[in-house]
């Protein structure tokens, strides 16, 4: 289970956009919001640099917490340092096939999967996502370009990121199965940026994501970016995946038999 789940303190009933009494929750989480407007997707430019300077930073795990004043709008946010990648980051780069013998539903192997997250990135990425002999990343937010998570249907990919300590990925667009697996497992928030930010952020930048306001703030550069709303996928990820969500909302019995 991803840390982001347990640290997400916001409760469903406090979310004004969501009611637990709704007998037929909408499930349009099956695709990211961008599908509705394919023509507005920006065409992309070549990535000029994929090797940001190495930065030694002591970075805490991303945290997601609810607002101090629960009576107002919830403001779930993530705060941490980012790791920046380019376009078409495929599942072989996220978790190479030699590690697929690890079964995500076994807790010890889940942890191990996390330690290999993004190990398939080419050597042009000078900064390691996970330091040697570490099992967790110090980057709780991954920023990417177009078509993040393309390739195989391996659920190991979002699981590895979540197990490594990633709370959210922010990319311009996602491959279908990766997006769905991210939501179904509740491992990570697959967020979409409105503009191409992977060329404006550098690995190690300090980032805050304000989920309810669909906003990303880069404290290092001082810039602020709009994200596409996570929509109905949000409550599913927050609950911890489709089974947990379906139980919470009464779609299936509340406890496993």
């Amino acid at each position, binding site marked *: 289970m991803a840390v982001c789940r347990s640290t997400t303190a916001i409760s469903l009933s406090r979310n004004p956009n969501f009611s637990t009494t709704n007998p037929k929750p909408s499930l349009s989480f*099956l695709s990211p919001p961008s599908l509705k407007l394919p*023509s507005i997707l920006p065409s992309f430019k070549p990535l000029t640099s994929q090797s940001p300077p190495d930065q030694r930073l002591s970075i805490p795990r991303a945290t997601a917490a609810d607002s101090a004043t629960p009576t107002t709008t919830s403001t779930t946010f993530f705060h941490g340092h980012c790791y920046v990648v380019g376009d078409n980051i495929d599942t072989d*780069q996220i978790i190479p*096939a030699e590690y697929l013998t690890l079964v995500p539903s076994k807790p010890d192997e889940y942890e191990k999967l996390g330690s290999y997250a993004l190990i398939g990135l080419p*050597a042009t990425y000078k900064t390691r996502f996970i330091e040697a002999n570490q099992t967790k990343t110090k980057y709780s937010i991954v920023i990417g370009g*177009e*078509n993040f998570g393309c390739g*195989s249907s*391996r659920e190991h990919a979002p699981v590895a990121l979540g197990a490594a300590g990633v709370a959210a990925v922010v990319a311009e667009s996602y491959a279908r199965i990766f997006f769905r697996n991210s939501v179904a497992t509740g491992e990570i928030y697959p967020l979409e940026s409105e503009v191409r930010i992977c060329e404006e952020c550098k690995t190690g930048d300090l980032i805050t994501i304000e989920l309810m306001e669909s906003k990303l703030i880069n404290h290092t550069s001082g810039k602020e970016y709009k994200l596409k709303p996570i929509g109905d996928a949000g409550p599913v990820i927050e609950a911890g995946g489709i089974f947990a969500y379906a139980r919470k909302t009464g779609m299936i019995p509340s406890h496993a038999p």
Partner: protein
Amino acid sequence: MASSTISPYSTSFITEKKGLGWSAFSSPSPSPFPIPKCKKSISKTIVSVMSPQQSERRPATTGSVKTALTMTEKIFARASKKPQLIPGENVWVNVDILMTHDVCGPGSIGIFKKEFGQDAKVWDREKVVIIPDHYIFTKDERANRNVDILRDFCNEQDIKYFYDIKDLGNFKANPDYKGVCHVALAQEGHCRPGEVLLGTDSHTCTAGAFGQFATGIGNTDAGFVLGTGKLLLKVPPTLRFVMDGEMPDYLQAKDLILQIIGEISVAGATYKSMEFVGSTVESLTMEERMTLCNMVVEAGGKNGVVPADSTTFKYLEDKTTLPYEPVYSDAQARFLSEYRFDISKLEPLVAKPHSPDNRALARECKDVKIDRVYIGSCTGGKTEDFMAVAKVFLASGKKVKVPTFLVPATQKVWMDVYTLPVPGSGGKTCAQIFEEAGCDTPASPSCGACLGGPKDTHARMNEPLVCVSTTNRNFPGRMGHKEGQIYLASPYTAAASALTGFVTDPREFLQ
């Protein structure tokens, strides 16, 4: 890939018709291409736009709204028991077949047990097909354990179709063992027109060749299907690819799909269905149609479909006794876009490292020196793929200049390689021709080195080599080493390249 090198042939044979869709999908755009394109595949000069031919939807005279549907929409309508639906709608679909394998099966089973209970039973023991195929001939203990987990589950659940392997030393001692799941599904009669087939593997889309809906899902979704036999799916809009013209005898379906992926990019069909029609498609064998549909996921596609016809029915004759009912796109069905190709003008293609849409003509890469050739996988390891390789070797009469690895997809393919006579060879089998050409001995059937796998996987790229491969992906590290370079190609092009040690257009040997 420089667009200028593509445009000379592209201009003449591709047209795209757009604007046939619903308002939500066909917002006016100044660009003739509605699809975001990858930088690697730009070919700006190729498109001519045709005006929409189809009329607006209107209520039928009975008063009820009658909407024309695409094939994929019809399959969704039937599987969800809804008379009408539209793309974008989420519907609960009844699943006809759920397939899983040794890489994702144990995790799916884990989720099924956790969520439905240790004593829970799968929804239908005859609709779950379990095919160990990925990491079989390895000493990796965890990989071996994963096959054991599948076996225990199948015994406990009395799963009817489990293609087990116990004797790893000799695959032929395992009569039940098949090999690569997508090829085995077809050979064992699990692919049927009009049905819904889900699998925990992205290349599950291969089965769309049979005119059914087939797509890849994750472990969590598969765990849900195991318990309920249903899944909530979004109805995809359809892109239609019309391929006409006589296919030259140096081309294969692999060239067609590489052409399409190069055209629309690795994300060009994300969330969409890809329907293949036209006289060229009609002329393709079932195995070639499978190659076509196999790689739709490399364009981001949710599924690919070829309308079932007499070729399909003939293939199925001795493979299934279950009744099936094919469906077809209505004449007035709405397509998001339509692409037209004149295949008679196409040339043999490759996808250069490190993306399946990094298209180039094979002849443009003739100076690329290669270290090895790999023939195998769900994409290029079928019987006809090996026959094609043998045909090139036979035509040349030469020996290969680089190590050439042969991994038949299934036990049936392996048997064919050793028993079927190659036309025009005077009765020689593929295996004999391969031996005379100096190839590596055909290996035990499995997914092999297509996806790297454990370090001891046969033909895995453990060094930074250059490989021409009949497989489906050339991402960094895909076949093992991160600095390895993979050129995706048809079996013809791969065989020609093996004979020269460079990427080679097969016309050098076939004409």
